[in-house]
């Protein structure tokens, strides 16, 4: 088991190196660089040549005139030492920009994951146990509706409804009064008040899907002979389901859990854009559009690291939960 884990970790290193090279090259593939983009944006916005009078002088400062491989080596050697470079767009150290957002992103995603599993598993079980009766039909309906409404649409609808109905503007993770204020009891409450909407919006799709999967799996398992045996032994139905059937039926969900780990960073992107949340997703999108190479590169690397770790955890968890899996290559 331990050898298996170590082997998996070692394999991750070349993967990450390859990702960093490919990512760095692809970010820079479009013709022109950040400053060209910047000038173009100013022109499109303000239609006046005077606004970008001095932008060109920055090219040298950021080293954009050097060959690509030199820029890459500078960035990578800094990256491993924890120096992620400077964001052109924000004129700040990347380091300064990402950690807060990373924190909010992980909180939001963990929250919505928790929401997903806490609602999906019990409802899936419940649905399966009442197959073809009205609670099952109702949950099936809700499940299909939930799975087919895109998160951003739901976010938009909620925003309009809340604003038209209650005059409550739903955006950001803080009220204006608490934005930028130091952490306090009031700020935490304010934060939680803002957090639940995105948590539900982001989690709803997944919850609906997972509920259907859980229901289907459990129905499969409930028909198998060992469940019949358990029932024949005279066990209570709840014990049969929870102890015997659910343990097997939940296996695919663990795989899915592992695969959804990178989604912790990227899953909420569109909803974050719609709701104006200070998470990583909108930052990555903006950095890619602007060819803000060091910021985009850093974020891509973080996503990749998380993906690799996620797969690793999923494999380990599955190996632990399912004795049929072997460790040999």
């Amino acid at each position: 088991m331990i050898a298996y884990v170590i082997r998996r970790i070692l394999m991750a290193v070349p993967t990450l190196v390859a990702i960093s090279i490919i990512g760095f090259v692809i970010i820079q593939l479009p013709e022109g660089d950040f400053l060209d983009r910047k000038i173009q944006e100013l022109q499109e916005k303000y239609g006046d040549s005077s606004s970008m009078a001095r932008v060109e002088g920055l090219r040298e400062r950021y080293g954009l005139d050097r060959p690509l491989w030199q820029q890459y080596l500078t960035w990578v050697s800094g990256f491993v030492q924890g120096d992620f470079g400077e964001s052109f767009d924000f004129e700040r150290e990347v380091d300064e920009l990402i950690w807060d957002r990373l924190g909010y992103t992980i909180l939001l995603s963990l929250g919505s994951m928790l929401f997903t599993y806490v609602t999906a598993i019990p409802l899936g079980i419940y649905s399966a146990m009442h197959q073809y009766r009205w609670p099952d039909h109702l949950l099936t309906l809700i499940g299909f509706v939930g799975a087919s409404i895109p998160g951003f649409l739901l976010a938009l609808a909620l925003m309009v409804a809340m604003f038209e109905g209650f005059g409550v503007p739903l955006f950001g993770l803080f009220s204006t009064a608490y934005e930028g204020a130091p952490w306090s009891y009031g700020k935490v409450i304010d934060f939680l008040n803002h957090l639940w909407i995105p948590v539900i919006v982001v989690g709803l799709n997944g919850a609906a899907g997972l509920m259907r999967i859980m229901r289907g799996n459990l129905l499969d398992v409930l028909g198998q002979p060992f469940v019949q045996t358990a029932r024949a032994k005279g066990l209570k139905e709840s014990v049969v389901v929870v102890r015997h059937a659910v343990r097997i039926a939940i296996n695919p969900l663990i795989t899915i859990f592992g695969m959804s780990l990178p989604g912790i960073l990227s899953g909420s992107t569109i909803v974050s854009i719609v709701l104006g949340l200070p998470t990583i997703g909108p930052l990555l999108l903006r950095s890619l559009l602007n060819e803000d190479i060091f910021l985009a590169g850093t974020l891509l690397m973080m996503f990749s690291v998380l993906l690799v770790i996620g797969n690793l955890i999923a494999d380990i968890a599955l190996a632990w939960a399912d004795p049929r899996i072997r460790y040999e290559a």
Partner: protein
Amino acid sequence: MTDGQKTAGFISGFLIVCVSACGDVRIKDSTPRNFPTNLDAKEAPMLAAAVATGDLPPLEERLPDRPLVARHDYAGYERPGSYGGTWHAFHTGSDLGVWKMVGGYAPLIRWNWSCTGLEPGLAESWSFNADGTELTLHLRRGVRWSDGHPYTSRSFAFWYELCLDDRHQYVPPVWCLVDGKPMTVETPDEYTIVMKFAGPNWLVPLWLATGYWWSEEYNIPEHYMKRYHPDINPAYTDFVEFQRHNVSHQNPERPSLWPWRIARIEKGGFRVFLERNPYYFVVDDHGRQLPYIDRIETTLIPEPQVRVLKVLAGEIDCQFRDLDLRDLGLLVKGQERGDYRIKMWKSAAGAEPAVNVNWDDKDPVLRGLIRDQRFRKALALSVDRERCNEIAYRGLLQPQAATVSREAWHFSDPEGQRLFAEWEKADAGFDLSLANRYLDEMGLVRRDAQGYRLRPDGKRLSMVLDAPASAVALAENDVALIIADGWRKIGIDVVLYTPPGAELKLRRDLGTFTVHLHSEAEMDLFTYPDWVFPTVASYWHPRTGKWYQTGGKEGEAPSGPMIRLVALYDAIKGESSLEKRHALVREAARIHIDEGPFHIGTVGRKPYPVIVGNDFHNVPDEGILGPWAIVAPAISFPEQYFMESAP
């Protein structure tokens, strides 16, 4: 309780929690909205308190001998204000550009509010010698930086010494050079700056006043910055730290001449807090020190829809730029709930966008066609401007030829307005049969199987139209589709090209495009002449402009009407009389009317919604936000806006 009841109970419980939680999602900003009437006070209470405790010298010692008195000759000015309040706004880029257009303008010489000329700023007066080779500026005595240190002529001299030093990024700006030779700067005393040029340089006062970006460069606090100068502080061997500390929007410690100095920048630059500059040198009619408003809080909001929401929620006190005309309906509808009103300013743009047809096209056959006036007229006459207006701008703009701003001071008298009206209408109709006739007259009568005309060399007459993708600029993309539609109707094949990233800009600069779109708004052609005169590598004259810019080393020599346009701009630079300079611009406009169009119009004169909170006062009812060179609204002295709820 059965399992079913348990689950149902859980769900309903959860919903109750959610619904009750959203009840107080919005925690109202706690800033007081009722200010004491303090019209007798000569300075803000927060400063008076600091004076009382001895932390700040008294007002007389902080103000210059003759403070600048803010003008308010505009509709929308109500009365002298009371001190206090926090102005909430947003910005869209880390460079704080949108804010600097409001509160970052402290030049030696200012543009006046009506944009008809210049008025004193840090300099009380200025004068040229007879041949325009020497400009003398007399500075206001007793102006101080925000840390109390005197502002003197050394500031300008120190900046110019930096420019002449080639160890770093600072270079002499274009207006310091005459025939490639940099000016010299002398400071006979603390309050006099003398600039000497190699030849007549009449336009310098305009450059000193234009934009926030030049004054930001030449107003440099030597007493603070010199500690980072490697010649003065041996701890530094290069200019890296110097350059870093000299960026006004990143360094709150750098003393400022703005009405509000930056007090704090939140991590990542997502929020910037500004606070009144206790040494600000401008006062109102009654000698009361400005600004009226105590503090500014501006938030970085890159996402356009979040900006709209902030406004609708009443979280913005006053906002001048970066709201889209498309959201106007929503903004109007939200006025009551958001407790704000909308003042309609204007972009004063002559084209949104202008269609730039490359005078210097690389393809010799196309170039031959484009340089034929009949061809360009045909292109102009087949643009359905009404449709552009209805589809892209909901009918809010004006169909017209491509021009600079109607409010530009070159056209301010009745004769100028008549000329301008003629320019606006030149070839701005929609007449496909006349367009077809022009093309037939040129001999482009043969057509291929698809009905497209053939060029003289037998190939299909086809043009590539560069346009931004709809995700980048929806209205411009719509306009591009309508233009392409019209040109196809007169037998010209159009290929729309919408590349991602920076390629559009590269194609513009290198001159490898055939047609590209670009919004046109310009108030002063003396300093930014390139919409009318081919003097810079841009717009419709990328290679001719390059030739002028590089003194004939690169690009292509002017041809046809370009020769006269370039000569006219040279004449403007050497002309001492303002009246004659304006006349030369009009002569150039006449060439555009008679021998143009060189760039083709669509629609212009876009309204610009300005958000003004109901407790926010003294904001002009109307103004121009398109061209940045005139720095509106800063030229209205926003330091005399104030906040006060109705009694």
